[in-house]
């Protein structure tokens, strides 16, 4: 019996690469045969992601049984004395959880695309499904990575897919421009990530996440001063902890770009130019989660540096508030969701930085479901509104689209953090962690206060969006006669709607605290895992190395406080926007409205920096290239040409001259040999 169990476990891990390979196959099929298939590649994508989902669930069950996997599967480059670059799999509770999230959302988005893309007669469907397949492959491989090098490779690939899919409607003006912006802004962050990867290789000689020879373990040993392999690491003139902070911040550059944190968040709202299912899959639920997932994956390393953690928390808290304030004035339903996405990822960063590893992963999970739901719901509304996205033109859709309304409402309640929907439990835990650790650290407390203020804004803009879209009287003809919706649109909404309602029950910390019941399932789940990569270990490291200490505080109190703020925001939205003529309420903000609509002039100053600094650097490089590099090359060639032109005059073509040279040469040789041989002495 035991043998059978072992072989089943081994088999589950052996087929784990197929989780990523299946979407890759659907990418190839859609790309090369999509034109000839009945649904233009959609069915291949649905089958592949469905298969991935089943395999992911199997892996999750296996991991739940206490079996973990951390193996190299393919070595790209190996050098005997220093490091090797390899691909490998790391299957532990964190990656198994993320695999299920990604494959589930990818599956539902493929299904939704049948209604959003196929039924609407969009062109370029094989290209679209190929992009989705390649994205799913890259994202799943990123999640499976057992080392930072492989993570980086797939981090870049998901960026490429994002570019491909934002620019899907490449004949229009805005999408290609938005795609380029997304690519360039995230690439700016990834540049630091690349330097960080190289620096980690240079410091530790390895980039694996887990195991005795992994870089977080080596770093921890170095700090503990316990000798071992981590005893003598090159730290380039800094203290060990200082250097680890630098490494963490370099990798954080990529995280800020991908997870759209301030100041690299500007690409995400523009990325909404892509098809709405793409926004749901890539720019809300999964790809932007890659940054947060990366920090969670190497949390054992970040936990060693209180400075890096404080920066993570502060940036997160600031972004949460900053983005939420901009969402308050937007007219486009997808823009509101885009800013709320940035804001919610800010919460996750806040949670990670404040030492709430489980809380952040919890919020990552609930957010993936409710934000995918909201985007798909917005997609359904956009179908119904004949591809209009302006909320001023909507209104009163509640009765026409009941399924969309109730699921969207569930997602909104989750986003606003109203009990008992998913977002309440997770956001509340993030804030609780920030508060209990922040009472001993003013920087964390400031981050917490920003996050808390953002709760009010979140409640406000969420219900402003719901009220403007679904309540009141229809404000345009289109809103009075919406387009009907098919099953492929409704099914994903219902599945995600149920998840957004109940998934929070996985980790009801306040209830557990109040009643003493063992119902913090996610805490238990993440406490397991390989040695050194589980929440229990992270907690110890945070306490001993980073010096984090939690104040005694009831989670119920904090929960009531943030819930009342969210309700206040929602109530204000209800007071202002439930009437028939809601337009003028936004105008009452006056100058602030202008500032918020223009996104605090973030784009303008970034363009200004790019134009002045970027052009200056480019011009100087051009001068260096044209002058020094080309100058050397051209100089060498001119010298050769000139001297060749002179030397060739020796070749006169006259036989007598050659004979003379020959004779002179012989005489010179004779004299030389004679002198050396001493004939003349």
């Amino acid at each position: 019996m035991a043998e059978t169990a072992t072989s089943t476990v081994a088999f589950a891990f052996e087929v784990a690469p197929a989780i990523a390979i299946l979407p890759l196959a659907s990418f190839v099929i859609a790309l090369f045969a999509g034109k000839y298939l009945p649904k233009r590649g959609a069915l291949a994508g649905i089958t592949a992601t469905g298969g991935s989902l089943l395999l992911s669930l199997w892996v999750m069950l296996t991991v739940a049984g206490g079996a973990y996997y951390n193996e190299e599967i393919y070595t790209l480059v190996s050098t005997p004395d220093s490091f090797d670059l390899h691909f490998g799999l790391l299957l532990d509770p964190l990656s198994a959880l993320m695999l299920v999230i990604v494959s589930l959302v990818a599956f539902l988005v493929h299904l939704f695309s049948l209604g959003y893309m196929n039924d609407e007669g969009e062109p370029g469907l094989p290209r679209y499904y190929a992009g989705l397949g390649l994205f799913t492959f890259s994202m799943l491989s990123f999640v499976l990575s057992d080392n930072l090098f492989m993570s980086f490779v797939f981090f870049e690939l998901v960026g490429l897919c994002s570019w491909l899919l934002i620019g899907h409607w490449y004949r229009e003006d805005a999408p290609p421009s938005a795609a380029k912006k997304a690519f360039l802004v995230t690439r700016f962050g990834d540049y630091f990530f690349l330097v960080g990867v190289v620096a980690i290789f240079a410091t530790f000689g390895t980039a694996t996440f887990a195991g005795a020879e992994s870089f977080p373990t080596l770093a921890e040993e170095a700090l503990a001063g316990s000798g071992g392999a981590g005893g003598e690491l090159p730290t380039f003139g800094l203290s060990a902890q200082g250097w680890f902070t630098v490494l963490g911040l370099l990798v954080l550059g990529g995280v800020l770009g991908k997870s759209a944190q301030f100041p690299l968040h500007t690409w995400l709202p523009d990325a909404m130019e892509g098809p709405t299912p793409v926004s749901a899959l890539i720019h809300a639920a999964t790809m932007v989660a890659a940054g947060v997932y990366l920090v969670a994956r190497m949390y054992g390393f970040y936990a060693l540096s209180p400075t890096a953690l404080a920066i993570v928390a502060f940036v997160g808290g600031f972004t949460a508030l900053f983005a939420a304030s901009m969402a308050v004035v937007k007219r486009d339903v997808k823009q509101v969701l885009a800013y709320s996405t940035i804001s919610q990822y800010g919460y996750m960063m806040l949670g990670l930085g404040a030492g709430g590893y489980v809380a952040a992963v919890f919020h990552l999970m609930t957010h993936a479901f409710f934000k995918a739901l909201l985007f798909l719901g917005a997609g359904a509304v956009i179908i119904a509104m004949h591809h209009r996205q302006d909320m001023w033109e909507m209104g009163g859709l509640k009765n026409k689209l009941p399924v969309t309304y109730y699921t969207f409402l569930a997602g909104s309640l989750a986003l606003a953090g109203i009990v008992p929907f998913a977002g309440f439990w997770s956001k509340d835990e993030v804030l609780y962690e920030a508060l209990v650790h922040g009472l001993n650290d003013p920087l964390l407390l400031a981050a917490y206060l920003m996050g808390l203020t953002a709760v009010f804004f979140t409640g406000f803009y969420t219900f402003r969006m719901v009220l403007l879209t679904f309540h009141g009287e229809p404000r345009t003809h289109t809103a009075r006669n919406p387009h009907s919706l098919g099953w492929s649109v409704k099914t994903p909404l219902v599945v995600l709607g149920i998840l957004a309602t109940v998934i929070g029950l996985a980790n009801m910390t306040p209830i557990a605290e109040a009643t003493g019941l063992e119902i913090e399932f996610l805490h238990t789940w993440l406490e397991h895992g390989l040695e050194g990569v589980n929440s229990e270990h992270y907690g110890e490291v945070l306490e001993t190395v980073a010096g984090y200490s939690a104040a005694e505080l009831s989670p119920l109190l904090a929960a009531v406080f943030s819930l009342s703020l969210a309700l206040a925001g929602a109530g204000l939205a209800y007071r202002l926007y439930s009437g028939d003529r809601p337009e003028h309420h936004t105008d009452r903000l006056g100058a602030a409205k202008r500032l918020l609509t223009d996104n605090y002039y973030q784009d303008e100053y970034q363009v200004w920096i790019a134009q002045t600094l970027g052009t200056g650097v480019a011009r100087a490089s051009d001068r260096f290239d044209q002058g020094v590099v080309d100058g050397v090359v051209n100089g060498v060639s001119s010298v050769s040409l000139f001297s060749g032109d002179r030397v060739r005059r020796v070749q006169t073509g006259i036989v007598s001259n050659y004979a003379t040279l020959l004779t002179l040469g012989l005489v010179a040789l004779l004299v030389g040999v004679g002198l050396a041989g001493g004939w003349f002495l």
Partner: protein
Amino acid sequence: MVAVQYYLLLSAAIFCIGLFGILTRRNALFFLMSVELMLNAANINLVAFSFQYGNLTGQVFSLFITALAAAEVAVGIGIVLVLYRNFGDVDVTKATTLRW
């Protein structure tokens, strides 16, 4: 018996005459003649040493050189003929078209 030094002086003198001819003359036929002189200077050397040491190898070698010189003259005269056909002259300094 004449000492070997005199043969060597004679050979060196003939060689230098041949070399002088090659360096100063422009007529291809003079070239051929000068080359003959130089070859025979070498022959004298070989024969002189052969006589000195009583070893016949040197004399046999000089016979080979004579045969080789005959072949060389045959090729050389052919070249001179072609030179004349192409340039209308047997002046070696005129034939400079194979340079850069």
